[in-house]
């Protein structure tokens, strides 16, 4: 160990991903929502399920975000909705990315019969409208949030598989991959060490964009009675309620803004993550000249 290393006191350093203003904004919003989801039911005084006679009240002093058609407080329902919408959509996106990414990588790397088999199954899923197929699967499994997530997983992995497959095919012939193979790495070492780190960035960005779609898809199933069962507060279900009460804009707008904030936050974080994962742009993330 050199002298300098011995003398420098170890101090806290922000991870490279977060040394970017947009990433800080994104991470703060997500942290805030996670905090809200974790503690809201313990500290918030207004019950999101309590109904009163002030139906369709516009935002005001008593109800900051107004009340819905059953007289429930929109603010507390929006806050409580984070408990279903956030964890389930994140779980879905992560599972779909892992499942679709692995299948796509295997299809792209090994090619031939394996590729054909996996991608034809993916085409089969693509051939149906997403929400219809998810409906059918959720209905067959029985209405519950778990089954809704499984149904959504089945309909959403193919887009990841498609993207991953084309990325792997592009990287497979690179000279550094061949050099690795010449040095005796097997198929899975080659995929894991040489190919995946170089193709993961687009997949992560796709995943962060997909969080919003996942929230809306989940809400679609909830709206049809196949996901969150009423009266459980859920952002998507609240938006669809609001659409039926067009003159009372506040019912749909506030949960909609909640969805927007989460989607934006994930996009900010995804962009910063991609930049810091790539050593060629990592310096820019850390605030140095390239």
């Amino acid at each position, binding site marked *: 160990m050199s002298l300098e290393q011995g003398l420098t006191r170890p101090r806290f350093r922000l991870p490279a991903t977060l040394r970017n203003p947009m990433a800080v904004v994104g991470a703060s919003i997500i942290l805030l929502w996670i905090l809200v989801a974790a503690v809201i039911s313990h500290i918030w005084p207004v019950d999101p399920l309590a109904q009163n006679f002030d139906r369709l009240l516009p935002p005001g002093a008593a109800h900051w975000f107004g009340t819905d058609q059953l007289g429930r407080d929109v603010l507390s329902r929006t806050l409580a909705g984070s408990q279903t919408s956030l964890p389930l959509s994140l779980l879905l996106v992560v599972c779909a990315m892992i499942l679709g990414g692995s299948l796509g990588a295997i299809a792209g790397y*090994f090619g031939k019969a394996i590729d054909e088999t996996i991608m034809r199954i993916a085409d089969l899923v693509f051939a149906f409208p997403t929400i219809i197929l998810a409906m059918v699967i959720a209905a067959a499994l029985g209405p519950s949030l778990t089954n809704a997530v499984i149904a959504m997983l089945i309909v959403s992995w193919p887009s990841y598989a498609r993207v991953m497959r084309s990325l792997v095919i592009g990287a497979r012939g*690179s*000279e*550094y991959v*061949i*050099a*690795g*193979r*010449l*040095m*005796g*790495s*097997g*198929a899975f070492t080659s995929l894991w*060490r*040489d190919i995946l*780190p*170089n193709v993961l960035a687009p997949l992560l960005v796709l995943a962060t964009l997909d969080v919003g779609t996942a929230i809306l898809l989940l809400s679609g199933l909830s709206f049809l009675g196949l996901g969150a069962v009423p009266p459980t507060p859920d952002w998507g279900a609240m938006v669809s309620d609001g659409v039926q009460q067009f003159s009372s804009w506040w019912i749909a707008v506030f949960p909609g803004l909640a969805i927007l904030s989460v989607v934006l936050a994930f996009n900010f974080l995804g962009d910063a993550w991609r930049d810091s994962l*790539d*050593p*060629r742009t990592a310096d820019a993330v850390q605030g140095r000249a390239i």
Partner: protein
Amino acid sequence: MTNETPAGDGAEEILAVNDITVTYRRPGRSLLTAVDGVSLSLRRSEVLGLVGESGCGKSTTARAVCGLEPLTSGSVLFNGEPVSPLSMKRRPKHLLGIQMVFQNPYASLNPRRRIGSQIEDGLGLNRQRDAWNVNELLEKVGLHPSDRDKYPHQFSGGQRQRIAIARAIGTGPDLLIGDEPIASLDASLQQRVAALMRDLAIQAGSGLLFISHDLAIVRTIADRVAVMNRGIIEEEGPVDTVWRHPTSAYARRLLAAIPVADGLGKLPGLPTRRQN
């Protein structure tokens, strides 16, 4: 490390390429024979230059020797054992002694891994475990040991090519193949990188198959040279013989095309420019 041994007749033959043909099927068109009946042989601590113009099949020959191109006919023997084509399976152990330095230094290193760990991968294959270490190898190729924690994009093209050479040499190969390793470097670097490859290969006791279109540089590092044109070997022999007394018409043309710095502003094959 083995000591320097001159490429004498006693040295064992490590590579025997016997009459290989590589044919490509072009969709909707005729077959293309890229390599047509090529035979080569290489001994330990010997440098064989393979020269020819672009598209003459020299890179295909190199890839076939590595097992990266399927052979249409003929055979490649490495240390007496046939070279099998690289499939999805792990490369057989006896073939790990063939290593390659690629043409494009910008694509031959994994951009997401530190160069130290990439060189370590190569060292892991070396049968003599303590023959080299990463720092020594980096110094050998003219880089600083502290460079091991850097990523490939932090180096210039010439430095990356030297890192690729360090990685290949670190494996302790019996046969090192340079597939136009100097083609994408600038003129001042070409000679140095080529000489470096020769020195390291000879030091490690490996054979070097050096592919280039530049006969002037190949002459300075090779023991023997093979001139290739349209998929066939036109001429092969000790480098001085081919350089001074080429027998084939193609080799003579190739030699005549080397620019001579005579200070007269003359380009080969063109009439002398009239001075005003």
